[in-house]
């Protein structure tokens, strides 16, 4: 199964980018949730790309193309 959510690491990362920003109690869990869904979308998109290329393995080029799309979609 999945391991525990890296709550401390998440907080550190956000602190690294925005040191003045504070996080409320369980917000990091929701942030992790959004991260999971982001990876989920990325995986789906990459898998679709690989299928279109008739490849059964996800290759970096598939991932890069997927990333461009999904990162754009994930903007607030």
């Amino acid at each position, binding site marked *: 199964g999945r391991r525990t959510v890296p709550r401390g690491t998440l907080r550190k990362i956000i602190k690294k980018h925005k040191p003045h920003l504070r996080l409320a109690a369980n917000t990091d*869990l929701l942030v992790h949730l959004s991260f999971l869904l982001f990876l989920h979308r990325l995986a789906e998109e990459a898998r679709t790309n690989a299928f279109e290329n008739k490849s059964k*393995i996800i290759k970096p080029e598939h991932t890069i193309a997927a990333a461009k799309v999904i990162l754009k979609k994930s903007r607030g």
Partner: protein
Amino acid sequence: MDGRVGLRASRRAAPTPRVAVRSSPRHRARVREQEPVVSAMSGSGLGKENKAGSSTPLRHRPNAFSELDNATPRVMLRKIIQNQPQVSPLALQTVQLEETEDARPEPPSQRTSSTVELQLPDLVPEDASVTTFRMTRKRKKLSISEFERAADKRLPQNQAHSTLDSTLVRSLRMSVGSVMAPDTVEKRGLLRRPQNHKAIDIAAFEGGVEQNMLQIKAQDYLVDLQTSSMTGTTTIRTDAEVVLNNTELFVEPQLGEQNLLAVEPQLSDSKTSAQRSNTSYPAHEKARLEGLVSRVSTDERRTLRFSEKDLITDHEHVDGITQKTPAKQGEEEQDHSQQNDPMEQFSESEEMAGTTEHHADAEYSEHSEKKLSRKAVSQLTAAQDAGVEMEMTPSEGGVAEGTEHQDSPKAELQMAGSPGGHSPASYSLEKPGAKPLKEAVEQTGEIERGTITGVLDAAEEEATDDESDKEDHESEEISMKTPMFVHAAAYRPQPVLSPPHPVKSASPELPPQPVRAKPVPKSSGAAQRKTREPEIASSLIKQIFSHYVKTPVTRDAYKIVEKCSERYFKQISSDLEAYSQHAGRKTVEMADVELLMRRQGLVTDKMPLHVLVERHLPLEYRKLLIPIAVSGNKVIPCK
């Protein structure tokens, strides 16, 4: 016809055609005919078959196979076992087979007796020697000839199978040498082979462990500095780095120490100048810091430090100054190498040094050298003006870089080779490179020495009077470690800038420096631990991504996913900041994150947040996020 009928009859009874063929009397006759030439096998065997009668190609093969079958180890073993007298599978059996003096006299004496009789007398000597369990050590390998001899002794007993045995023995000799092994194993019974326990050389082992540890340490140090400066790239960039990474055991600890010692004066100097001189030239200081950063992150920094120290010692000899610490000596040299002359000298040496291999590094060092030389200039003037101690080890380091680059390949190899005898070894190396430096020094140094020594004396006094501990450390070589790492840490997070013209870009770069210098020291000052940037564990990313994608993923694709994750976190942190600011708050609340997910299209009217939470998060976290009502007027999480 009869044969065929017989064949059919036998076939009905036999399970396989092979067995049927083998059991057919015709085949048996053939086999007996061809026994003497069973060793010759294929060619002659087939010829004999042809002679035997109607030899269809089909018949050839079964006969040939049957011949071959007879010669299989399995069959031969079976025959041997059948011929051998029945004995218990104890170690005593070895007595019979071994070419021991005990065994030999016995069988010959019993040869004449019949098989049955033989068994008993055989057993007798066995019983007699029950007590002695033959150690297999004595007879490690039984030669085939020995076995044959023993086997031959028993062969005459079985007249019927004598020829067969002889052929068997011959075939043994010829074809299946390895058959001996299972047979001997069988004869030995349940004895194990002697075990060779190799004594572990503890000394060698520990030495190896130490080497590993130090290599790991050195590599970690190297890697860490690189990552901090190059945002996570840990690839070996140049041959120099490879060489450095693979240096000998005894080199690395010294490297580490000397790194500390060498960098300390520079960094401590910069700090002192930052603290003391109000009139410090921001540009130059920043340039110096940059130079330090660049130096820290270059591959040749170790060799640079080496050469620095060597230059220090060189100049000791040259200038005849013996009392001062390397830091002070560095000052002196830098004071000497003052104005444009040294700069020109540096550029000259740089040009000389610029080989194609180290071109990038040479450029790098050129820039840093220029910066440092200019720093030297500015610092000198500042020192003369304000009497501030300006320790010029950076510029000296720059010089060292220039000279070092000339001999960098040689120097590195030499450094690796002779860690102990630095000064003498590299002195000779440094000589050609040091010449221009020395010239510069000597040309400009004469006049300034007087003033500079005065400055240095004042600086020394100041050093002793200085409040900060770090400055006290400056005067001492030994305890430089803390300030060195403090400063090293200060420069690590900063991006490495290598502007083409340091003069121009120097000025805008200073302002962020002092701001950052302060908060960073405390994180890395205490322990000399590498400050790793916070990242999501790559293993977790791999786990999650592969779970969602359900198809194999290349390693490079994972790297890309990691990079995407970093960028994603950067994006959402700015988004969340915007949302909370818009709401007039300084803290990100749950509503902000929900809004983010809504804007991302994850949460819709059809897909509420709680459903997503239920789907994707583990139970323990679900409970935290979704209030569930339990009996007794209790709600989890408690609000």
